[in-house]
Structure formats: C-alpha cells, structure tokens
C-alpha cells in the first residue's frame, strides 16, 4: 500500500480583510498521524476545509502524493480528491441506516460494499447497530460510524475536525485508542484538528501548533508539550490545565504505562 504524504506550501487565506492563514507550511508524512492544535480562530478548521477542497486558498499550493491538487492554476474538486473528512458534529445522514451511511462513499458491487462496511463495523464495534438510524444510537457510537464512513473508501488522507470533543470522558479514552489502532492498521495519513492536548498525546505521532495563521512549532507531541518554544504556546498549555506540572506528570504516567 502506498503511503500518501501531504505538503502544504505557503498557504494563504483571508475572509474579507481579516487574514486567517499566513504563508502556512506543513508536511504530513505518509502513514503518520499529525495533530494540529491552536486557539479558537487560529485557522484550524479553515485549513482543513482548504485541504478537503471545500474552500480555495488565496495563495500557495497543496500537493497530495505526487500530484498538485490546488494552486493558482489548478483546483481539483472535493469529490475527486479522495480525502476523508470527519467533522466534530459527525454529520451522519439522518435518513440512512448505519450500514448505508458507511456504504455511502463506496463504489463497486453491493456485495463488496456490504463486506467492507461490515469489516469496519466489526473493527469499530458497531455491528449491533447495523440497521439502526443515527438518531437511535449514542453520540460515541455516532462518532464511530462517522469514522467508519470516512475510512470505508480508503481515502488517501483522513482529516478529522475535533473528532473527540463532544463525547463524554469515559468514551473519549476508548475512542482515541481505537482510532489510533485503526489508522495505524490501515496506514492512513491523518490530520486531526483539536484544541485538546490530550488528543495529541494519546493519538498523534506529531503535534503542530498553529498560531496567527502559521505553524509555530511542530514535533513529537511530548517534546512539544514539555518544551514550548515561546510564551504564547506555553500560555495555551497553562490555559488548559493551569499548571505545566500537570503535563509532566501525565507524560510520566504514560511512560510508566
């Protein structure tokens, strides 16, 4: 299986007169999970939408694998990019059963579609809800369906916008673990947008901090958390926990595990 890398070169974008992304550069290495963290309004979701082709950047280029998918000359439409998307609110199709939601993006014979959907439902432990409608299952199960649906067509990369944010704490832990396992098994290059550093520590291979429309720091999650390069980033950790010691003890705890 070919591992797809994604390269963002000097991405610029603005809404009216307010710049959102300012010559942002980022490289996602094939098969790796990268977590992008930043404060509200930092441009995280906009970046995700630009990569998915739901918006066109005002400057810069996006390269997926060996192909330029968007620059000032060319623009490949969303439905032809083979990029999976999981959104915070899950956005399951309310009129379709769980199995039909997962089969939605699959092409080919019915037998293949069902086989692939059932394989993913087994992995995500949602096979019992095969014939349920989205409103009949819990939010954690809905998020599993949403992930399975995005993974079903084997996308080149997977984009996830706050995938664990509206789920209760107990479920969040198991969902992060399962998601990491599946993404690693399927060897899918992934970008998770979040505001929770725990997502990066538990799921990601890399942590990128976005600030003022640029990548301010990138590296292995633990080292970024323990060594913020400036006060602005440090402040983000402190805002979340009130204490840098929290992160140190959390990382020690994870290491001991």
């Amino acid at each position: 299986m070919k591992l797809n890398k994604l390269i963002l070169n000097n991405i610029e974008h603005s809404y009216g007169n307010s710049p959102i992304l300012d010559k942002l550069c980022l490289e996602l290495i094939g098969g790796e999970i990268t977590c992008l963290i930043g404060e509200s309004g930092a441009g995280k979701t906009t970046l995700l939408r630009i990569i998915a082709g739901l918006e066109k950047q005002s400057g810069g280029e996006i390269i997926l694998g060996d192909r330029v998918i968007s620059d000032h000359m060319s623009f490949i439409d969303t439905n032809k990019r083979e990029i999976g998307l999981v959104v915070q609110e899950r956005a399951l199709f309310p009129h379709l059963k769980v199995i039909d939601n997962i089969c939605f993006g699959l092409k080919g014979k019915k037998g293949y579609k069902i086989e692939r959907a059932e394989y993913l439902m087994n992995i995500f432990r949602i096979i019992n809800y095969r014939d349920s409608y989205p409103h009949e299952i819990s939010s954690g199960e809905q998020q599993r369906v949403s992930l399975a649906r995005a993974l079903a067509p084997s996308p080149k990369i997977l984009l996830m916008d706050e995938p664990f944010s509206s789920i209760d704490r107990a479920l969040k832990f198991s969902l992060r673990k399962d998601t990491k396992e599946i993404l690693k098994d399927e060897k899918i290059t992934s970008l998770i947008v979040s505001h929770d550093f725990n997502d990066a520590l538990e799921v990601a291979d890399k942590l990128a901090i976005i600030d003022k429309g640029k990548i301010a720091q990138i590296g292995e999650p633990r080292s970024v958390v323990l060594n913020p390069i400036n006060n602005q980033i440090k402040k983000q950790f402190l805002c979340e926990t009130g204490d840098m010691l929290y992160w140190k003890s959390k990382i020690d705890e994870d290491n001991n595990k």
Partner: protein
Amino acid sequence: MRNFFSLSPIFIVAIIFSLPAIFIFLSLAQDFSSNWVHLVDTVLPEYLLNSLKLFIGVSIGVFILGVSTAWIISTCEFRGKKFFSWALILPFAIPPYIMSYAFTGLFDSYGTANDLARFIFQLDPETVLFPSVRNITGAIIVFSFTLYPYVFLISQTSFLNQSRDIFDVSRTLGLSRFKTFFKVALPIARPSIVAALMLVAMEVLSDFGAVEHFAIPTFTSGIFRTWFGLNDLTTAKQLASILFMIFLFLILIEKYSRRKILYTSNSTSNRELVPTPLKGYKEFFAIIICSLPIFIGFFIPFLQLIYWTIFYETSFFSSGFISLITNSLSLAAISSIICLSIATIINYIIRIEKNNFLSFINKIITSGYGIPGIVLALGVLNFFLILDNISNIILTGSLIGLIFAYCVKFYAVTNSSISSGFKKISINLDNVASSLGSPNRRILKSIHLPLLKSSFLIGTLVFMIEVIKELPATLILRPFNFNTLSVSAYNYASDERMIEAAAPSIGIVIACLIPIIILIKLIGKDEIE
C-alpha cells in the same frame, strides 16, 4: 386539575366544532337512495378518476416548481435572490378559481393571448394559436402555479435547516453537488415535502371554483350537483363523507410525515449552509427558473384582470364593489376576533394546566382545517337545521352559520399562531409574576397579552387571507342576496361574464396581497419564524 368550569370552554368548543363533521358521518347510517346507486353506476368512478388525475398531476407540478426554486434560493447566491425569495410567495394571493378565470380569459379562442397573437402575426380571425385550457391539463397547470408556494416554503425551511457539514461530508465521499442534492438533500427533506404535498392535495380535492369553471367533474362539483341538481341533500352528504374520509387519510399521512421530520431534521450540526455564488449561464438559469412561477402564477393572471378592469371600464369603484369589500372584510374580521379569543383562552388554559389531554382536545378542534369547505358547509347546514327546530329561531341562512363555518375551518390558523406565541413566553415569567403576588388573570392581562401582540397580528392576517379566498362554504351558507368578493367573482364567472368578474377578483387578490406583504415584512424583521 382545576374544577370542571375552568376547563369547560375547551370541551364546549370541541363538541360544537365537531358537530358538523359528526352530522356528515351520520349520513352514512341513513339509507342509500336510488340517486346514490345511480351515481355509483354512472359518475362516481369519473369523479374518483378525475380527482386522482388532478392529485397526481398537481403533485408533480408543485414538486418541480416548489422544490427547484426552494433549492436554488436556499443554496445559491445570485442577482435578484432577495426579490425572488419573497416574490415566489406572491401566487398565494391568487386563489385557483381566480387564476382559472384569468387563464380562460387569456387562452380561449378569442382570449387575450390569441387576439394578441393574431394581431402581431396578422393571422385570420379563425386561427387559434394557444390551445384551450378548459381541461384537466389546464386545471393541473392552474393548481400547480397557485399552490406551489406551500411546497416552496416548507422545502426551503427544510433545506435551510440541513447542516453544511452533511453536504461537505457527502462531497468528500465522492458525490458531485448535483448528486448530493438527489442523494442527501432531497431524501432528508422528503418528509417535509410529503407533508406539503398533502396540504396541496387537500386544497386540490376541496376546490370547487376552478374545477367548476373548467367543467371537470370531481367530488366537490359532484356534491354540489347532487344537492342542487338532484335536490338530494342526503346523498350529497354521503358523497361528502367519502371525500372527508379521503381527507382523513391524507391528514394521517401528513401527520406521519411530520413525525419523521423530527428525526430527519435532528442534525447534530448547526452550521448553516453557505450559498454558492452563481455566475454566467448558471446565474441566468437560476433567474429564469425563479421568474417563471412568479410570472405565470402571479403577474400574468393579475395583468389579465387589470386589463379587463381598465380596458372594459368595469365599475371598479361602484357602491356594489365597496359593499362586496366591506362584506368580505367584516366577515373576516368578526370571525378572526372570535377565533383569536377562543385560541387565546384555550392555549392559556393549556399553559396553566400543563395537561396533555387538553392539548389533545385542542388538536381535535384544529382538525376542522382538514374538512373541505363544501363538506363543512353541508355539516353546518345540517346542524343549524336541527338548531332551528329546537330553538324555533331561524338561524339557517344567517351570517351566524357562515361565521361558525369559518371559525371551524380556520381556527387552526389562529391557534397555531397563538400557541407558538405562548411557547415563546418563558414559563419563568409566569413564575416570577406569581411570586410577586399576581393572580393568573393579571399575568394573562399584563404579561401574556402584550407579548402575544405579533402572534395576534399574524393570526389575524393569515386568517383574513383564508376567509377572503374561501368560496364553497361562503356560496352555500351566505344569507340570501348577501355577496362577498369570492361569491361575486364566482357568480359572474359561472355566467361567463369574465369581464365583470375581474373587479371582485382583483379585490380578492389585493385584499390577500396586503396581508401577505405585511407577513413578508415581518418575516424579514425576524419577528416570526
């Protein structure tokens, strides 16, 4: 639960409002006359077939017109969008029977359109370019262009409630915008659209004026002919009860669809759709698609009526016309005041009692909206004949019967406005007022009523539109020699005196247009949902 007297208004209204329907159904227990057998053997299958053809044809017509325009307005950005978003509602001001008068005036052999074509192309006086519209196809066109706003409004709300995320995800899963519409947007909106189609079906099947003008035998015209032609009120009521049963079936489908709307619209995301800007030929087509229904459904019939009025110098502002307007407006005003009072009292009792059974009873009272005008008129007539015998006072043929029929039929309109008004008033306001020592009556007078002001206005406006347009019940129940705009337009049109029918028809259109414009302004100010 309070004592019986505090709840009695709801039960009394429920019983009285149900009586016309009960009398209609009781007719099925009476013997079926030879007229009935004759009808079943001869014309009943034709009534059923024609009604079915109209139902299917109009459903397709309003679906195409309503859904396509709603989708364009909800998801696209183009020049004139703001104008189209309210102008597409204008055909609501033209009842199907008025449109049918205008259409026959336009497309008959010597109608305006053929005259114009002969003049422009210098053709023989016998040449007819436009085909006749006095047939089922013509009726389907008339109903589709006057009733599509139901589908437009309801689908538009449904599309706007769908989240942007759902469309985004669908596109990342490989679907184009076009396929996303058919595989995602349309199925999600389906329950809403079905509910709207049922409302349209009820309007079509209860219509009397347009089908009568086009000479299409349907249930309603059959009921009328059986009564006045065969002079057989019992058989007419028996026919009416069958029509009513069809309606009950349609209402059930509508209610079922509304239940489904609850979960299909239960999206977990609330990000609104971002309209796509249209340029070039796409913008041109969007403008054409949105203009067509307004042009055919409003401007053409309106211009035809104005043409008759101006060029044939009909007595537009004669004393007769003024009295028609006065009659229509005063009837609408009196019945709306009665209905608003009843709706306020009932919804207030439901609010303070918090009792599901009372809400259920209120729903029964609102179900009068589903009774076709002609069926209701027969039921009211039956009820008043009994009252005449009991009280020795002749109420039949008085304005009381007509006002009562309007109240039964259109109570749902005022109830919906008042009940949503009450829901918007936080129960905490009542609690705080109570804790400050205010008795319930004072809370109603000083808090609820002032806050319900816009609900009263909206309820009155929609109620007035409905009453002014109403034809069959008015025609049957009005006192002798008492005319309204709708009756006068019908009388002239049924004598083929189309030019004289223009003045009352324009009166109806303008009388409906004013409340519609006020409502659109209110919607623009976000004062109503």
